[in-house]
């Protein structure tokens, strides 16, 4: 629709007065012909028909037409496909400010009282109107492209989500079969084992467990990313949750020669949490603490009231590992962040654990942070809301 810069602009004059049309045509050919291709029609209906079949670059519209007035013309034009892209300059017999405001509101690009029309004024008005229309069209095109990109991204996101769902089912079935087959042999259900065989099967089973954790981290992270993970909080005694998490980690810690300590303040109020999810956070922090502590080190869990925000409860997991550099502390809770070091290779992991911890704690309304001294150890602390029967539950 938009003319090339070199090609003449298509101008449609809609005016029932032959004299006025002649005047405009003359103005448009001054100072030299060839800048514009000029078309003329006498009625609003004919003008709209041309706009529909061969949209011009600009319309010069007489306000008073035999069949329509300027406002009616603009209204109908705006309802046509692509109609709003055609700039219209309204020409009225006399200046009238109210009319000027009305037609501009109805979408006119400009308004000129006929007595002020000169070759220069008309040229300037057309040039402005066409430029504006070009810019508007470009903006509209960009908006459309952005919308398309947005829709594409949403679609891809949905595809990734269903891929994760498929992954969950397709990988967990074989994983279950391997894990349980190994466990059946290990438990001696199909015959006795040598010490060597037992050792290798334990390795296989532990690796299955590691894979399951990674797979679940992946699925949880995907759900957290899309806000699909919701928590179901209840009033829970935090002491029991911590004791069970510590008990679950004890065999691994013992095998590595790491001491596990717990210190739970007495008379703590019940916390308002999704127990499975907070157990997941604790398990994650404990597993990291054991992983990063050297043999002979100590991992401790401390539960007490949050002094800065009573009656909230603080849970702190400390280790005697190599600590975290100050520069890294801001990033360790980010998605896919991995502490890089010479021996990072043997630690592996997807780098999702702390991200999941942070998101889960946030879903409870709490905070998580780390304090660390290089070569002495780190302490991860998170806060949890408490349940007070007389209050409406938090959240």
């Amino acid at each position, binding site marked *: 629709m938009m003319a090339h810069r070199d090609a003449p602009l298509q101008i449609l004059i809609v005016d029932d007065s032959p004299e006025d049309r002649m005047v405009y045509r003359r103005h448009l050919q001054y100072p030299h012909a060839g800048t514009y291709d000029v078309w003329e029609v006498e009625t609003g209906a004919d003008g709209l028909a041309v706009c529909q079949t061969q949209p011009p670059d600009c319309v010069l519209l007489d306000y008073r037409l035999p069949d329509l007035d300027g406002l009616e013309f603009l209204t109908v034009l705006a309802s046509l496909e692509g109609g709003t892209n055609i700039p219209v300059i309204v020409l009225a017999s006399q200046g009238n400010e109210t009319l000027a405001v009305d037609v501009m509101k109805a979408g006119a690009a400009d308004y000129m009282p006929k007595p002020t029309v000169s070759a220069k004024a008309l040229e300037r008005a057309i040039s402005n109107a066409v430029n504006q229309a070009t810019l508007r069209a470009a903006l509209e095109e960009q908006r459309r492209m952005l919308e398309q990109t947005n829709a594409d991204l949403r679609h891809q996101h949905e595809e990734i989500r269903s891929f994760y769902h498929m992954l*969950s*089912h397709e990988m*967990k*079935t074989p*994983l*279950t*079969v391997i*894990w*349980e*087959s190994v*466990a*059946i042999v290990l*438990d001696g*259900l199909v015959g006795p084992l040598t010490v060597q065989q*037992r*050792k290798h099967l*334990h*390795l296989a089973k532990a690796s*299955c467990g590691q894979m*399951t954790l990674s797979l*679940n981290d992946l*699925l*949880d992270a995907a*759900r957290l990313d899309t806000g*699909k*993970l*919701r928590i*179901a909080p209840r009033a829970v005694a935090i002491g029991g949750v911590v004791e069970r998490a510590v008990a679950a980690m004890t*065999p*691994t810690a*013992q*095998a590595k020669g790491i001491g596990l300590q717990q210190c739970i303040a007495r008379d703590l109020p019940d916390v308002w949490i999704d127990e*499975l999810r907070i157990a997941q956070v604790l398990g994650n922090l404990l597993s990291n603490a054991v992983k990063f502590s050297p043999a002979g080190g100590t991992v401790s869990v401390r539960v007490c009231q949050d002094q800065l925000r009573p009656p909230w409860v603080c849970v702190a997991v400390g280790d005697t590992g190599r600590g975290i550099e100050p520069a890294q502390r801001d990033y360790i809770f980010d998605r896919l962040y991995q502490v890089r070091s010479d021996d990072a290779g043997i630690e592996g992991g997807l780098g999702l654990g702390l991200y999941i911890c942070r998101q889960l704690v946030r879903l409870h309304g709490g905070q998580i942070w780390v304090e660390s001294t290089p070569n002495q150890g780190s302490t991860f602390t998170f806060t949890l809301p408490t349940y007070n029967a007389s209050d409406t539950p938090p959240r």
Partner: protein
Amino acid sequence: VQKTMLVVEDEPRIVEMLTTRLKAAGYRVIPAYDAVLAGMMALKHHPDLILLDISMPGGNGLLVAERLQHVETTASISIIFLTASRQPGLRARAMALGAVAFFEKPYDAHQLLAAIARALGEPVAHAPAFVVEP
């Protein structure tokens, strides 16, 4: 008297794993490979307990449990769900249907057997201690 377990699971390899465990623990096992068979087998055999997968071709385990509860002769059968899904809220929905336990795959067989024994009012066998080889 030997107790009967109905194992509802579309994956034959997992049916085999479960059968091995359950037979070793002294139970009789009836497999059902989809939701429709699950209902038929439950009505026909009146198992003492049903191990029920949730996402199966041709029907959802939650619906199977709901339907069995509306039938007088199957309403009192204990149900343990066993699923690969980690869909949020699934555990709560399953337990709200009156299930006695909910396990995610891969499951820990000792915990599963303990849950079955508890549901049937039997003594819980002592699971072999988890040994970590040095």
